[in-house]
């Protein structure tokens, strides 16, 4: 395994970008054009992020399944792939500081030094704890979409889709178009959310295009004969004697119902992926409306650390078009900070982008109110597993909180919650909210897990080999030439 990348000099770029979704790609294209030396690191072999995953080599033959919003990403990926940017695919960043990062690629770790860092690490689906959510056969709507995009795979039938949020309707329509029978679409959005959302109607009116899209999806489901039920509570997944999903139960209008299914796709919206921003020590605050943590950034994407910027869903949920605009705005700010651009030129170029950003964000207050998860998914019943890795229930978290455990970091010692391989990615939000509830204090007072590197699994051998740092930029270039 002698590779051509055994160069021992550590490489240096002006701007390192983590994530090549819409925010990372747009920022990289503009920053490169403004004369910065840019490297973009992504965990996937192909650029696009989750939203445009594999759009340059789509698996599905029928383009109507995923629809135009997905293929919109083609031109962005093409621009990104031909620009003067170092693209480091298939690489996970496991540590970052204000001047360098460590990444693992092909089983080897490398260091990359930079002047400025842009985090474009996107979103993850909000953890959806409910009884039985660990049963094989229960997956997220995002997972189903990734399978469609990257493999042309559709879930085993019968399929039930349950939860809340725009992605729920979209995935249902995409599967329907692929010829998959959807047994039922169960919406858990509480009725009170509709009344609350009306307060933000002004924004919804200016975001009418978005509403029209939603209405079209609903009409499509109706035409497809999908059994759609709203106001669902008490969702529960039940396993057969092999431990695999074979039924779900739920309450509708005060009565319990059961449905046989092989796949249950769940969704309760998306939240910023804060693993790296936390590990970097960036300030985070609790967003009461979106019920998640978000890093503190200004209108340029600048964080509390001078040379670390954020763009896209990782800095607060806005969606793909917002992410692209934020990436471009951050690129201008970074170029100005690096004196490639005067401040007045930066402002002039950013003005139309910021206006468009405002227009795109107008719908958010309405959506955030409408799709706020039902309390049972934020603070589930005692029997529900909250930490999937270490199998800790909501009841146990409540108990240790009542017994005086102050916050999530202490909870680790009391219960092992958050100590498993996912490092709290799937329990952190829930644990903070349960503890806040039990202690009767705001979530912001309870805080979140302290995140420490490595934030991605690496082997001891890799660490040892890193003593002689190699050069990821040159390695990426070499393997691109080889391929």
């Amino acid at each position, binding site marked *: 395994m002698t590779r051509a990348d055994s160069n021992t000099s550590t490489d240096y770029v002006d701007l390192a970008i983590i994530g090549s979704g819409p925010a990372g790609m747009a920022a990289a294209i503009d920053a490169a054009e403004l004369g910065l030396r840019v490297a973009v690191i992504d965990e996937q072999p192909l650029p696009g992020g989750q939203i445009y995953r594999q759009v340059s080599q789509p698996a599905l033959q029928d383009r109507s399944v995923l629809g135009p919003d997905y293929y919109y990403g083609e031109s962005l990926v093409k621009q990104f792939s031909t620009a003067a940017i170092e693209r480091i695919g298939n690489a996970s960043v496991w540590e970052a500081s204000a001047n360098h990062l460590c990444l693992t690629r092909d089983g080897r770790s490398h260091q990359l030094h930079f002047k400025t860092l842009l985090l474009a690490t996107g979103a993850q689906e909000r953890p959806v704890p409910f009884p039985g959510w660990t049963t*094989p056969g229960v997956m997220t709507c995002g997972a189903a979409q990734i399978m469609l995009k990257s493999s042309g795979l559709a879930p085993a039938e019968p399929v039930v889709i349950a939860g809340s949020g725009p992605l729920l309707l979209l995935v249902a329509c995409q599967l329907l178009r692929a010829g998959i029978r959807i047994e039922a679409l169960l919406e858990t959005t509480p009725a009170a959310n509709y009344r609350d959302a009306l307060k933000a109607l002004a924004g919804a009116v200016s975001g009418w295009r978005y509403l029209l899209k939603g209405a079209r999806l609903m009409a499509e489901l109706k035409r497809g004969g999908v059994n759609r039920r709203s106001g669902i509570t008490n969702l529960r997944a039940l396993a057969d004697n092999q431990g695999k999903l074979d039924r779900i139960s739920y309450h509708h209008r005060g009565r319990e119902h059961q449905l046989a299914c092989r796949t249950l796709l769940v969704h309760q919206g998306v939240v910023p992926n804060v693993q790296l921003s936390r590990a970097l020590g960036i300030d985070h605050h609790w967003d009461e409306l979106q019920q998640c943590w978000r890093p503190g950034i200004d209108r340029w994407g600048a964080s509390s650390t001078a040379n670390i910027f954020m763009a896209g869903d990782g800095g607060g949920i806005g969606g793909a078009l917002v992410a692209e605009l934020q990436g471009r705005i951050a690129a201008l700010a970074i170029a100005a900070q690096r004196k490639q651009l005067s401040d007045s030129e930066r402002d002039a170029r950013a003005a139309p982008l910021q206006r468009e950003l405002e227009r795109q964000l107008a719908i958010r207050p309405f959506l955030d109110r409408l799709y706020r998860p039902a309390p049972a998914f934020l603070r589930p019943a005692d029997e529900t597993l909250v930490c999937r890795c270490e199998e800790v229930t909501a009841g146990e978290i409540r108990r240790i909180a009542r017994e005086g455990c102050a916050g999530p970091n202490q909870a680790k010692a009391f219960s092992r919650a958050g100590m498993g391989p996912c490092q709290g990615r799937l329990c952190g939000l829930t644990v903070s909210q349960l503890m806040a509830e039990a202690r009767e204090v705001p979530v912001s007072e309870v805080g979140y897990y302290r995140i420490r590197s490595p934030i991605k699994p690496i082997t001891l051998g890799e660490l040892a080999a890193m003593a002689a740092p190699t050069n990821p930029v040159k390695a990426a270039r070499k393997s691109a030439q080889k391929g």
Partner: protein
Amino acid sequence: MASDSAFKRLPANPAAVVNIWVEGQPITARAGESVAAAVLAAGLGPTRTTPVSAAPRAPYCMMGVCFECLMEIDGQPNSQGCMTQVSEGMQVRFQQGAREPLENAS
């Protein structure tokens, strides 16, 4: 290992076929896809049992977040199946995670 839980392959653009071994069983995968996707398409699983109670689990998020897809891939335990691309001849084993040796619980 009933295959009524197999994911369904939809009409796809052409891609090379990759042969891998899962629990000693040969399966075919699509070049470029993840190990987790190939395993789900073959209807294999649950793909691991947990260290705490030996409960059965399978890939959940497919984007590197949940770590439910941990498998032994080419001898490397605790590899994320959803983040690893298939390659010819790859050997995949499911992890039976009980900390104490248990009678097969599932």
